[in-house]
């Protein structure tokens, strides 16, 4: 089954079973490895991407529903070589340890800031439900607030 969508600004067409999780189309067919496989059960958030600007866990999103949609992955978050505000904040606060879950968190945070430009601690607690095993949450919270500042100053 052929499915077409825009991903990171480019129109792509892939021919896979429509039930294929979008994650695998992105990773293996389009060779964008920044979107990570963590659990395959929409429980950890490592595969978080944006579909039409909203956060979606791509391991549980069938390719066929991507038809005509606008998809952004971590590779498309930075524009023209400039890191996205969330990525800048992440670098300032030196958030990553092993780093594997970070693209998912960064995408979830970018989606959060799209909806709530200045999130409170409670907004963060409610909306950021990804899992990080290294325990970088303490710095992440600081980075999310910092990203909101960078966002606001742009």
């Amino acid at each position, binding site marked *: 089954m052929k499915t077409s969508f825009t991903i990171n600004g480019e129109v792509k067409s892939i021919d896979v079973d429509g039930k294929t999780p979008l994650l695998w189309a992105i990773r293996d067919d389009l060779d964008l490895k920044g*979107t990570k496989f963590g659990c395959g059960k929409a429980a950890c958030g490592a595969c978080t991407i944006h579909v039409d600007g909203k956060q979606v866990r791509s391991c549980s999103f069938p390719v066929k529903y991507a038809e005509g949609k606008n998809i952004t992955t971590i590779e498309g978050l930075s524009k023209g070589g400039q890191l996205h505000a969330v990525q800048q904040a992440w670098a300032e606060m030196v958030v990553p340890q092993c*780093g594997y879950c970070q693209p998912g968190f960064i995408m979830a945070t970018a989606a959060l800031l799209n909806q709530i430009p200045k999130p409170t601690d409670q907004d963060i607690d409610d909306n950021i439900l990804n899992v990080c095993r290294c*325990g970088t*949450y*303490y710095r992440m*919270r600081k980075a999310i607030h910092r990203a909101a500042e960078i966002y606001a100053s742009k």
Partner: protein
Amino acid sequence: MTARNKNDKKPKSKSRRKFLVRGGLGTLGVFALGTYILRNPLRRKVLGIAETLIAPYSGSGTKPNLWFEITIDNKILLHSPKVEMGQGTFTGLAQIVADEMNVDIEMIEVTTAATSTGIVDSIGTGGSLSIASMYTPLRELAATMGEMLSIEAAKQFGIAKNKLQINNGTYFYGGKELTYAQIASQVTEWEIPDTPTLKSSKNFKYIGKPVKRIDQIAKIKGDPIYGMDTTMPDMAYATIIRPEHVGAKLRSADTSDAEKMAGVVKIIKREDWIGVVAESYVEAIMARKKVKVEWDIPKIWTEQGIREMLKVGNGDKMITQKKGSALEDDDDKVVTIEFSSPLGAHAQIEPNGAVAYVNEGKATVKLSTQVIGITQKQVAEALNIDLDNVNIIGTYLGGGFGRRLNTSHAVETAIISREVGRPIKYFFTRQEEFQNDTFRPPTHHIMKGKLNDEGILEALEHHYASGDVAINSVLLPAPLHGVLGTDIGAMRGANIMYKGLPSHRSVQWHTTLPFATSWWRSLGLLANTFAIESFVDEMAIKSGSNPIDFRLAILGDKDSGPRIKTVLKEAARIAKYTDKSDGNRGMGIAVSTDTGSPCAHVVEVAIINNRISVEKVTCVLDCGLAVNPDQVRAQCEGSIIMGLSASLHEKMTLKNGKLSPTIYGAYDMALIKDAPKEINVHLVQGVDEPLPVGEPPMGPIGAAIGNAVRRITGKRLTDLPMRLS
């Protein structure tokens, strides 16, 4: 092309090494400059690591191996024997090299040494020892490299070495300049100097400074750096069916329907697993569902059954520490409290897996592993080929935490590749990950203590039961188990650090469980410290003294005693520790020492809706010289949060004979909402060399939280994960 060492007549123990030069070789125009070591200069460290059992770096000395490459664009590429799993080791090593070679850190790149290209640690990366063990040897190597380049630069300019001017990897003389790369490209035979004098610490530009992680931009941008991201041309995907029941054996499998599924390449049946290979991962998963398997399930293991096995009094007894006399059971002044901790999963986010290609008697395997050298041996043995024909290429790890100290799935991937004749990518499903973990074993503890007439503790005993940690691990040769008798991993943190006590003892009861338990970040430290420090706190309350003075009175002045006292006092002072609680909010304090690094935490806990919420943690760690204080802090924060998660939330159990749960969420782990909003880390430097960092801060966290809950509610929580009701 091997250089002769002109100073080799009378080898000096410290600098006896040969250097190999591969000028103009290497790949893609890279000039490689390598060294290999005849004698491991790190042996002297070995004595210091008996506690951790994970030896420091111990490269093999039989092959020419590569430490540094000077690339054509004048960068210095360090082939690290240690892997980067988040602990920041690559950054610390880059700082060390930059300082001793007097170059900007931007000139340094670090990569994981593969078995074919560099020195891999033949034991592994773990025990929080990477920086601690590499610090001096790497400084010596880098300084020697710098000196070699200077000698050659002087030769090429035709001047005396002391006339050279150098700036960031480029030599200048008389208006001319030569880069490291240009120099290296001209050299065919290197002169090997004695190890130069190392830089004085007051001249460090990078060591001891909060340099930003050198790998963070790649991680923030989602670069394909992990085992899960690796590929090989014409690769097929494998998934493996394993038993879900503990102890189950494969009886029969009907693969006929599965073989007809789209994209299926081959289905491979082995004694205890079935590999389903297809052109894509999704096709492999679809086909896997069509395999009809029957298992022999000899026994349905229950939670209670495991608990019965793991009780003080059952299993192999070993007294691991003894001073003074044992407490008598009929002494009515003896206080006894039991504690326990559950089975814990690693739950690292990157699943285990490998990409392997076996062809014409040679194997190449790319994977995330903490044990590159051991994996090489395992693959060579399983395929019955020479070690030299197996190349293990390590990647960045999406979390280690001890889980990747056993990566025998590299063997399975290689076997499938050999059978299929193509490169194979295999990785665990999350369910497979949870049910085939090498878990942190459950533990049971009986603490006994007695106060003297002045209310000072005079005797303390820790009796503890644990499953395997070190015993049966691939890291330890089997004979060592017998010699040692004790499970040294389970023993981490089990011995009493209060050496000032007239009597103390620690007794281990070891049992091997019917499923694998092994290394989990900090090993026995978290549970053992939880038991000991909760109990000591309770005794302080019984004696009517504050928990700091109570501890200071029994720590003693031997061994690490003074350093433990320092972190304890500092933590209490900085956090303004108080015993007082308003019934909703209060503080807890606990201390431990692990691999020579004492650490104390003061936590502030609030009880919100009958839940324990950790609001603030003040951490004081003495890890000696902090090569990168910011990353030491990051390790403390991570340890605190992972330890908090294990102390308040996590628990694996047995359900209908299967290990459960098999999904995040159901396996309850701390999320951002559970992390303390304030973590203040203070470093004290009790010694001049770097000491382990990544695990010691896990020790006191559970006990500190429990002690705070005790002050708030009056209730002593004795079982992890701690719950109020």
